[in-house]
């Protein structure tokens, strides 16, 4: 049936990417453009007592200084645009505009700023200890779960909490949130094997290749911002708010985004600085080029965990009880709720019979955090998948088998609410991968040593929610016979903006050559869509494009029936015509129908938008009115349960016991992403996600000096994202390719579990190579491995964070 779905295509934006013509934020230019630079805090927590800009402003060519007092304040603990109380090294205090970028920096060097030092911390447990420092004046913990404003509290655990746990185990004081189901204690009592593990996962920066530069100017009362964001429509309301204008006064252009991984999913305060500066300069264009160091300070990071998990297994390998506690390092600002995802991940991936989850989220005076690819989920599997192997080893069960025993099927449930999933084919992914990887045969030689090298084979799993619903779609058939699919989703680099647009074409049986994807610029009149994050696009946008196309389809049939007689149900479509089923020669071309729609007006050509769409969608439909047959609709399709995506990763490594170096010989990822839309695009996600997972597993981490709050991983060579030579030359990708029944064409999300599976598989393989589970910490770096193999202890304490 599907003409387009499941087939490769050339995404319209790829040509610009290979020719250098694609425009990223810093590639835009405007007449008379000037530059601004930021003055960043050298201290981890301070108060600005005085700023003397007189020397700077005397310099010829220096145009303006913008301070925190001149931009809209954000309610704490939201990240400020500029601040008089910097909360981490690198927090922007002010901006300077000048004719040249260098001059702006020279001017910053002349600014005299008086900072009063305030207490700070780079370790959540230090902040939770009685009398410990609070990273923020308002408190030290934040309930930042989505769905309501963040709640800041001051919580100190008792000295007894810490004493009871000892040095090596996570103390478990008052949590911010908890849930449980089943008879946790009873099941632990029944368990044949109980693991009680304390773990640490490191914070790590997104370090997208494109720093988040932005350019802005004002013209005719409108503010034009050229930004770097992985989302389009979703950015607009918050960005307008940061700038202090109504949505309709903002023109936002984000044609291409040089990587976001969660860090550019929503509007961020920094993006508004050129707009504020430009306003101060009477609308003159201002370019704010963000450097790599600034991208470290202001480009966000993944939260780290200090956690503890108790797992009780039956003799047969069934996980019958879990008790989990996660302390999240949330950075200095509101952060992101990775911590609840830890419990959800364990609950869905292993379907424990009984489970309790607790968690809290603590401020530290470190860089701001936000979602990073599988936020919470990928930290969790990096810890729990090796623990599943540990249990399997102790119980004499094959690692693949223990996953089969515990993995969910279509009846899987998530979290304390025991929410159902829309679909789940992780078992099928494990089966398919095991076969393609030749798992059984290779596993048999796992552990063999050749010289200083030990081979190991392992499997790892990943999970992430995979869709949202309730957003809008707009399609437009023009009198020229073209189908324009308007998408507000953004351009993260997955090509799913177009992959999901093809669903509208599929519904309307359009030839792809006659389709145009409209995106990347609010002036293209885009619908209200959620951002391109959270592995949701292939589910959410499939639905919006589907309902918009269905609306267009209904209108085509209505118009045909009106003009040619009969009822709409008497008509069908094909070859870009709407025609009578019983007399295919009677019909209208799409071009003719579009012309008729314009003549009919009203709801047919956009003059009367549907009543239930978002105001942004309504404005876009009205702006398009009269240009063709408009299909516009809100996604009101039914959905029950949580869309969920999974990945199974299979890996073979060689670990050098003399150097601690690990070489990945082979990797195969198998995604459960519903029906495959775009095979090549899927392959890039499965492989690229695994590469990022490898970085998380064995390379990347934050380093902070606890004495002065200085970060040690500002540059790329210090942050260590994986290079060509740190990953296999050839990688493999596949998918289960079974439809999600609640997605109109069976598609669901992809991009996050692919990373977790890669990370988990690699960590499991390292344990396997070392003859059993060793590390409850990521990343596992050569020094950790060498220390273990030489019988030395690790340099860090078990719960220490932001350290080697």
């Amino acid at each position, binding site marked *: 049936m599907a003409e387009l779905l499941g087939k490769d295509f050339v995404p319209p934006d790829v*040509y610009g990417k290979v020719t250098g013509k694609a425009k990223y934020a810093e590639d835009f230019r405007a007449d008379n453009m000037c530059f601004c630079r930021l003055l960043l805090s*050298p*201290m981890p927590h301070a*108060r600005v007592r005085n700023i003397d800009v007189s020397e700077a402003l005397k310099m010829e060519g220096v145009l303006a200084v913008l301070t925190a007092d001149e931009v809209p*304040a954000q309610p704490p603990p939201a990240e400020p645009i500029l601040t008089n109380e910097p909360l981490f090294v690198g927090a922007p205090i002010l901006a300077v505009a000048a004719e040249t970028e260098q001059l702006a920096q020279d001017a910053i060097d002349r*600014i005299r*700023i008086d900072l009063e*030092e305030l207490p700070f911390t780079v370790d959540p447990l230090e902040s939770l200890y009685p009398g410990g420092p609070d990273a923020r004046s308002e408190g030290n913990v934040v309930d930042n779960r989505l769905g309501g404003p963040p709640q800041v509290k001051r919580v100190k655990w008792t000295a007894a909490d810490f004493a009871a746990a000892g040095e090596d185990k996570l103390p478990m004081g008052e949590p911010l949130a908890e849930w449980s189901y089943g008879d946790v204690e009873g099941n632990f009592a029944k368990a044949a094997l109980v693991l009680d593990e304390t773990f640490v996962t490191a914070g790590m920066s997104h370090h997208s290749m*494109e720093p988040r530069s932005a350019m802005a100017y004002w013209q005719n009362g409108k503010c034009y911002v050229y930004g770097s964001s992985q989302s389009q429509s979703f950015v607009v309301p918050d960005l307008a708010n940061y700038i202090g204008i109504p949505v309709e006064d903002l023109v936002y252009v984000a044609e291409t985004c040089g990587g976001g991984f969660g860090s550019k999913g929503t509007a961020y305060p920094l993006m508004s600085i050129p707009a504020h500066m430009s306003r101060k300069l009477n609308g003159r264009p201002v370019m704010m080029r963000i450097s790599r160091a600034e991208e470290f300070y202001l480009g966000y990071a993944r939260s780290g965990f200090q956690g503890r998990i108790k797992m009780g297994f039956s003799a047969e390998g069934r996980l019958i009880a879990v008790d989990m506690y996660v302390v999240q390092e949330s950075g200095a600002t509101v952060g992101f709720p990775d911590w609840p995802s830890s419990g959800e991940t364990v609950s869905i991936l292993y379907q424990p019979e009984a489970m309790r989850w607790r968690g809290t989220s603590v401020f530290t005076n470190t860089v701001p955090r936000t979602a990073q690819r599988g936020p919470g989920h990928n930290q969790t599997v990096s810890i729990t998948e090796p623990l599943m192997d540990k249990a399997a080893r102790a119980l004499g069960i094959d690692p693949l088998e223990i996953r089969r025993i515990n993995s969910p099927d279509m009846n899987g449930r998530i979290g304390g609410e025991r929410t159902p999933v829309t679909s789940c084919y992780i078992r099928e992914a494990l089966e398919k991968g095991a076969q393609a990887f030749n798992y059984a045969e290779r596993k048999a030689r796992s552990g063999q040593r050749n010289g200083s090298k030990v081979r190991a084979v392992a499997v790892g799993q990943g999970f992430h929610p995979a869709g949202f619903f309730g957003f809008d779609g707009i399609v437009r058939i023009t009198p020229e016979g073209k189908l324009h699919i308007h998408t507000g989703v953004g351009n993260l680099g997955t090509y799913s903006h177009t992959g999901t647009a093809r669903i509208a074409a599929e519904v309307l049986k359009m030839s792809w050559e006659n389709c145009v994807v409209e995106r990347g610029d609010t002036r293209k009149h885009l619908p209200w869509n959620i951002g391109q994050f959270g592995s949701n696009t292939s589910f959410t946008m499939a639905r919006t494009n589907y309902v918009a196309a269905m609306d267009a389809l209904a209108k085509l049939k209505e118009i045909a029936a009106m003009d040619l007689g009969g009822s709409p149900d008497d008509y069908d479509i094909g070859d870009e015509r709407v025609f009578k089923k019983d007399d295919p020669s009677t019909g209208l071309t799409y071009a003719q129908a579009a012309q008729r729609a314009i003549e009919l007006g009203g709801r047919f050509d956009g003059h009367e938008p549907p009543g239930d769409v978002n105001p942004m969608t309504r404005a876009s439909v009205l702006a398009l009115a009269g240009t063709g047959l408009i299909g516009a609709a809100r996604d009101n399709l039914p959905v029950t349960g949580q869309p969920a995506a999974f990945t199974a990763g299979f890996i073979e490594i060689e670990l050098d016991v003399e150097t601690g170096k690990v070489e990945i010989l082979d990797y195969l990822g198998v995604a459960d992403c519903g029906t495959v839309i775009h095979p090549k695009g899927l392959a890039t996600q499965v492989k690229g996600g695994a590469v990022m997972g490898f970085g998380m597993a064995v390379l990347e981490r934050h380093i902070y000096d606890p004495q002065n709050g200085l970060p040690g991983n500002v540059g790329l060579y210090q942050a260590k994202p994986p290079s060509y030579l740190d990953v296999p030359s050839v990688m493999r990708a596949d998918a289960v390719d079974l439809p999600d029944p609640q997605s109109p064409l069976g598609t669901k999300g992809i991009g996050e579990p692919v990373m977790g599976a890669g990370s988990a598989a690699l960590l499991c393989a390292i344990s396997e190579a070392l003859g059993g589970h060793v590390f409850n910490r990521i990343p596992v770096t050569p020094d950790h491995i060498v220390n273990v193999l030489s019988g030395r202890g690790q340099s860090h304490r078990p719960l220490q964070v932001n350290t080697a």
Partner: protein
Amino acid sequence: MAENPRDRDVLGYPEPRYERSGLSDLASRKATRRQFIKGIIASGAAVSSAAYLFGCSSGERAVAPAGGVERMLTLRVNGQERHVDVLPNETLAMTLRYKLGLTGTKLGCDRGECGACTVLIDDVPTYACSTLTHQVRNRSIETIEGLEGPNGELHPVQQAMIDELGPQCGFCTPGQIMSAVGLLRANPRPTREEARLALSGNLCRCGAYDHYLNAVMRAAGQSAVSQA
């Protein structure tokens, strides 16, 4: 910009406000060892932001003696002579991007670590962010914009990048392509491992390495995987 922005009305803009938080009582806590150490780093209440924490001054500059480079120079970029006024401290990446309009050369790190700014200097892949423009006078400079043929036909590496879906976000792609073109000029039929080494100075945060290598092998007229 077509119209003078000064003509527009004042925008509806909320009054700025900043809520100060009363932390003065916490500022002078007991002098622990930590604070003692910090005190050395950050002694002095008001100093220039340049010197805060750091040991350098903003440094007034004396007038330089004669003999420094001439700012006006001629560059040979993508086969064309370009006359341009270049500051002594200007990197090639900045000249290309901000003076010659060649924004295909990307600045990912400006530190010679990521490779997004890779261009060819006399056919040799070079980080344009870590090369002074004055160092490449009289040399042949080639950027991503120079690869297409006279009628806009794509270079085989560019076409292969499309065919293999090399780019994801695409930001590192021009640099990847320039490294690949440099490789194929020196070694038209590389093994996959040779290609991997040649491109290893180009980071890709999307992790598209495998697809990029497939594209290089395709452009070299070889099977993508068999040459591993």
